[in-house]
């Protein structure tokens, strides 16, 4: 981010520099008032830039693929199951995992704002928070999947979960064929962020070899 960190308000044109100045002024006021500590803000930003991301969720999925008891525990109570793994940051109390099968494909949206399992997947991408996704996911999920280049069999049921409360959902994608002997670490490389939202599928061994 260092390349964006500058003091020249003209660099990005007037609209953006206005926002930049406004945010800077707000931080100054809140700091002078004693409400916030800029060093704590630095640490939060750094955490989201370097530590929290979809790898957390990918490791959970890979474990569920290789450990039937963990898979069962995850589907029964994802908060508790994820809590048993030391390497994942605390997920709060309300995580639900939903499993994709050849019969059923799950997809997650928040039509009202941008609810998303941050601890599992990091910050949501812009498209997840955008009007096109929020408006269409519940009405035309196959059309949305088409935008992502995903085609499902016509008879595959689609279940869309609208995150309208504090419950957060994680899709457990299907394990690709030809990965029977793979380790959890290696399997996790196949688990994309979008496959855990339901707008993608896990990568195949052939796709990752490219």
């Amino acid at each position, binding site marked *: *981010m260092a390349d*964006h*960190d500058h003091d020249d308000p003209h660099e990005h044109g007037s609209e*953006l520099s206005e*926002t*930049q100045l406004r*945010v*800077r*002024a*707000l*931080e*100054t*006021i*809140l700091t002078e*008032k004693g*409400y*916030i*500590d800029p060093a*704590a*803000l*630095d640490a*939060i930003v750094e955490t*989201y*830039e370097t530590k929290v991301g979809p790898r957390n969720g990918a490791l959970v999925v890979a474990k569920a693929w290789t450990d039937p008891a963990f898979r069962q525990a995850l589907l029964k109570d994802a908060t508790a199951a994820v809590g048993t793994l030391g390497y994942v*940051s605390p997920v*709060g*109390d*309300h995580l639900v995992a939903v499993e994709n099968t050849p019969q059923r494909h799950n997809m997650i*949206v928040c*039509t*009202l704002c*941008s609810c998303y399992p941050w601890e599992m997947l*990091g*910050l949501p*991408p*812009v*498209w997840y*928070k*955008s*009007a096109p996704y*929020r*408006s*269409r996911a*519940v*009405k035309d*999920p*196959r059309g949305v999947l088409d*935008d992502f280049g995903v085609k499902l069999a*016509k008879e*595959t*049921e689609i*279940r*869309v*979960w*609208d995150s*309208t*409360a*504090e*419950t957060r959902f994680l899709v457990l994608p299907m394990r690709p064929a030809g990965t029977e002997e793979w380790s959890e670490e290696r399997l996790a490389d196949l688990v994309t962020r979008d496959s855990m939202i339901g*707008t993608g599928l896990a990568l195949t061994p052939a796709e990752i070899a490219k």
Partner: protein
Amino acid sequence: MNGVHDMGGMDGFGKVEAEENEPPFHETWEGRVLAMQRAMGYAGAWHIDDSRYAQETLPARTYLSVSYYQRWELAMEKNLLLRGYVTEAELKAGHALGPAKPLPRKLTKDVVDAGMTRNSFFRQQQGPARFKPGDRVRTRNINPLTHTRLPRYARDKVGTVELIHGCHAYPDSVATDRGDDPQWLYTVVFDGREIWGPDTDPTLTISIDAFEPYLEPA
């Protein structure tokens, strides 16, 4: 409120455009906005539902035209002013001009991990759950002028209770400063045709998480 934030089922917003290798933040100020929001939440200045409601009550034109983190910033200014943490004069001056309003705590560097841990929204139950998995329910036809988490597309529809998530703080109450008013929370699933009519993809089901006051027996 029936604002533009309640987007489920609207047409005309176009294709979903995904960005390859998207960075966590596109500009430095976006990270500062997110972090300030987190810090003020930790400090106890307002609740997550207050942030959502402040965004929803931005002018519809503004909501649709500014970026995501700009919306957060505007909503934060609204809550700061509304709750007396800063004044208009201070926002204009870009500096503190008067004393601070006391807050329960402050997010400092040594407690950042605590500040990043998601709150629990579980609350002590006030009575037994009215519904159980498998029950048929109809969502109420409500159109409050204030914050609600029952989306328009899912009002006055018949569905089936699938999961019970325990008792949670009730956003409709929290966002209007009436306290947690804990309510049972359920995942309710609808056939796509119940929501969008007979021409809809017959394989589609849609669920919402619905607080008990949104539901009546069907």
